[in-house]
């Protein structure tokens, strides 16, 4: 059963995505800030990471760089999940190795589940 790590400080939204993923048979782990998200990625070795851009401690793109620089986590596909869609942020995320940049307000939980299925099929763990 594939495991998805959700890194987001919005507890309500995490609950929503966790429930949607669980209903489709995925395991989920969560972290509410960038640093603990990075640590959980190393300890849990998820199949995929959904990473928010605005976190209380460090910005999402910075967490992404940490994940891609770390040998234990560099091959885990990371999709950004954010309400901020400024060009510079999207470009920064894609350049740093994100497989997708999803705008939260444009998608339903089922759309995210569908995208995750596609990402994992394309080469996730």
């Amino acid at each position, binding site marked *: 059963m594939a495991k998805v790590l959700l890194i987001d400080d919005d507890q309500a939204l995490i609950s929503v995505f966790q429930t949607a993923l669980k209903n489709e048979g995925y395991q989920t782990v969560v972290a509410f800030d960038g640093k603990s998200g990075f640590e959980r990625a190393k300890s849990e070795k998820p199949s995929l990471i959904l990473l928010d851009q605005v976190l*209380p401690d460090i*910005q999402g*793109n910075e967490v992404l760089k940490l994940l891609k620089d770390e040998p234990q986590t560099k091959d885990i596909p990371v999709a950004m999940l954010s309400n901020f869609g400024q060009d510079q942020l999207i470009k920064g995320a894609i350049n740093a190795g994100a497989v997708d940049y999803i705008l939260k307000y444009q998608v339903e939980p089922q759309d995210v589940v569908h995208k995750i299925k596609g990402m994992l099929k394309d080469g996730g763990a």
Partner: protein
Amino acid sequence: MGIIFFKRKKKEAPVPPPPPSLPAASSEKLALASFNNLLLGAFVVNTQTNTLPLLNPTAKRMLGIQAATPSLASVINALPPTYDLQKQLKEAVASQKPGDEKEITLEEKTFAVSVVPVSTVSAAVLLRDITFEASLQKVKEDFIHMMVHELRAPLTAIKGAAQILEKDKSSKQDFNKMISIIQEQSKKLLDQVSSLLDLAKIEASRFVIQKTPSDVKKLVSQVAEVFQPQAVNKSIALTAKIGSSIPLTVVLDPIRIGQVLNNFVSNSLKFTPAGGAITIEASISKETPKKLTVKVKDTGVGIPKEKQKEIFSKFYQVGQKTDDDPNTHIPGTGLGLYIAKQIIEAHKGTIDLVSDEGKGTTISFSIPL
């Protein structure tokens, strides 16, 4: 005999004599003095000879030019490489029409540059410092981004929870969780809209509080209770300490003071990592005049020193800059602290913040009894 009509000639005002004309040399001196004393930066370029017949002191200062008689090349070098002065001059002189105003940045200042033809071979270049307007524009854009985010976040959760309920695959526990999310996030959305209305009232000087004898112990306990589930989720210890000398009731606006405490605790929860602690402490000062002081202390990420003095400002948010582009500023916590300050000041009180980056923050207010 016919009637002869005579049209009375209108009496015309006497024409004043022409003013004595200034000698040519004095006219030029006057023009030059006006040019040199302009608040605008200005210089004139002769495009035929590629020379700089006039450059006023304001332009020299704006461009950072030290030389006493600078050349056109030195002016071109002083301008940012993205601004093609020669092209702008050529177009203005050829069309004999002013060019479109362009914006340039020099040494962290922003200028509006316009090129105006003054003859068939020369054009004047005018520089206007718009640094303040540009920063206001940025503040406005940041504010809009922030408000859009603050409104979108709860809406996204509500929409998502509704979709899960619609799919009807969830357990009873998840069903209840989604209903709870819809209720909480709807309230959050309402609170955001209320903040915007509060801001409008503050701007219109129509912000009022309604003081009534209020149970402070109950107020503080209720705030701690409301945020307890979130704190537990994040493995943060949230406790309330109420001093024994607090009277049964204190005259204050309980809804507004509740709003202030909600904002303090909400910010602490947001910026305190898992495993941390938040304490709400209410006490009465020993010195006279007696004051009620309420502190919210956390072991969170803290606030950088350079942002602390601006944190209660209307449009200042503790946000994040990105390494990719320092101009991409992600807004932070929003209007809450600005409105909190207005509430406390309406109570004739003071608000205070002590923070150490990486160690934590204590935010507090004191109001007279």
